[in-house]
């Protein structure tokens, strides 16, 4: 067993097919995996993630670097950066399986500043697929998806995954951000329905927007918006699950909402990580242990998706 017999993750190359700004600091990049990566990702689940080596990518011209990131972008990048995906496109032909993934990213530090400068046909080194994704219980009839800010991409992937694979399941999605500008999606004002997120419209999943300042959709927290919806709809707690990804206070609210309505809830957690494969032990998530004590589990290896009941959330 010096080399593992069953390989589930690995290192491979990916080619950039497009890398475009959506708005302000938000970008959408589409990567095409080499045959090894495609094989590894053929059964990938929403909520899993990958890590990209951005240390070898050069900085864009200074004028393209947001002013507030010019100092921090001078720092060399050492570690890989984890990304979830908003879409995975799998095609099969005679030559085998070919996988493309779409990643929505926010430029917020030295690595993502470098990521801006990736051009079509550039190649990057990727490690994945990593972690455990969302799990869909059998008989699921209603999925309540709750997404906050940059936690939204895997929720979009989950929405389209449920639509494709679970025709009996009705997903509905609640997306929140500080302001309209902070939504990592294409926002359109519909005639009847109000604010529409095009990405969710394309996969035919109803979406409801909440912003802290009311600049789009409901004014307030995304979890309060979800609460109103649950109050006004018939929910069968035996066949409904809340799936959430976003900032930790939002995940805590989603967990409390689930508890109120006696619904199971899965949350995708985020932690600083160095390795992504369980070596460094840095991405600890405090969880309840059977002995009534608490136990650290690893976001990268045991998560990033956890049952909300198991997690001890950090309030700040």
């Amino acid at each position, binding site marked *: 067993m010096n*080399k593992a017999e069953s390989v589930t993750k690995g290192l491979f190359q990916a080619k950039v097919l497009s890398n475009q700004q959506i708005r302000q600091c938000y970008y959408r990049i589409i990567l095409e995996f080499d045959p090894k990566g495609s094989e590894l990702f053929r059964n990938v689940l929403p909520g899993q993630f990958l890590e990209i080596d951005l240390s070898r990518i050069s900085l864009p011209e200074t004028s393209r670097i947001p002013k507030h990131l010019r100092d921090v972008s001078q720092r060399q990048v050492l570690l890989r950066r984890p990304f979830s995906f908003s879409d995975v496109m799998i095609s099969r032909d005679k030559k085998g399986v070919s996988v493309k993934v779409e990643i929505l990213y926010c430029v917020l530090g030295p690595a993502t500043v470098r990521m801006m400068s990736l051009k079509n046909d550039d190649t990057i080194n990727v490690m994945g697929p990593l972690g455990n994704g969302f799990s869909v219980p059998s008989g699921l009839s209603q999925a309540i998806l709750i997404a906050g800010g940059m936690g939204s991409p895997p929720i979009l992937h989950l929405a389209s995954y449920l639509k494709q694979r679970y025709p009996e399941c009705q997903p509905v999605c609640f997306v929140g951000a500080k302001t309209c500008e902070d939504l990592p999606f294409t926002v359109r004002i519909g005639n009847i329905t109000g604010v529409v997120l095009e990405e969710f419209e394309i996969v035919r999943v109803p979406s409801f927007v909440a912003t802290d300042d009311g600049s789009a959709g409901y004014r307030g927290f995304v979890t309060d918006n979800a609460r109103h919806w649950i109050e006004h709809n018939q929910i069968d707690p035996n066949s409904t699950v809340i799936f959430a990804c976003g900032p930790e206070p939002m995940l805590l609210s989603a967990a409390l909402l689930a508890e109120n309505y006696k619904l199971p809830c899965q949350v995708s957690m985020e*932690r600083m990580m160095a390795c992504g494969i369980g070596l*460094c032990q840095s991405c600890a998530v405090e969880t309840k242990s059977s002995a009534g004590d608490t136990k650290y589990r690893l976001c990268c290896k045991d998560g990033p998706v956890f049952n909300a009941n198991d997690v001890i959330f950090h309030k700040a």
Partner: protein
Amino acid sequence: MMEQDVNLTVDFAGLDLAAPVMTASGTCGYADELSEFMDVSMLGGITTKSISLNPRKGNPTPRIVETSEGMLNAIGLANMGLDQFIEEKIPVLEQLNTKIFVNLAGQTIDEYVAVADRLAKESAIDGFELNISCPNVKKGGITFGTDPKLIGEITAAVKKVCLKKPLMVKLTPTVTDISITAKAAIEAGADALSLVNTFTAMAIDIETQKPVLANRTGGLSGPAIKPIAVYLVNKVYNEVAKDAGIPILGMGGIRNTEDAVEFIIAGATAVAIGTATFVYPNTAESIVSGLGRYCQKKGIFDIRELIGCLK
């Protein structure tokens, strides 16, 4: 001209290493995670993460932060403890065709001794690395590693229970003169030295004006520390280890073959790969191949000719 095979095997404190490259403690788990990325039998050995007598939860998060060409960590020796290690991990380690060093941690000398005593009887374990240099725990760790008298006491006490398995002492660079601590370890019976552990360091979030790490301070590792580590390996080699005939496991920021060669020239018998494994988990294996190519290019047929050859 025919390419002659290069001998990459080295004798390390009585153990035959297949190559002078190992993985560093705390960066390779128990090697099980790594076997998806490389053939660990290509390596000279692996050093497990620290094992303490009782399980340790570790520190709150954030436990790491990236800095210029490096990272700080304050994991706090999170580990499953001796009993679970024996039950779950020894059977895995037994399957590996490479040398296994267990990194020993504790809060008291008795605790270190208890762990070594129990593991010395395990045939899967080839040697020990005494962690007296962890900067991230309140008791034990670095408090032992900066005091030559305590280093002597703990090294002698643990050495007594190691049976015939080599005991390597891991030194902290956070001392005024590392040769003094190196000498203390050797005089007390250390069979090998590993250096350097991380440098105590801090990163500050200027928005909150608080330290980034929950533990406030952490250990700096990665390429940022490499030139200092090379210097310290050379210093210990020249001033202590060479004359004592004690091998050095050199580490600190190695991420490629060139880095590894520098350490060997400086006096390391073998090198360990740490932080670089986080980025490319197969780094150690690629360095083994790279060392062979370097030797061929230089017309060296035995890697041992390189050890401490600094002109």
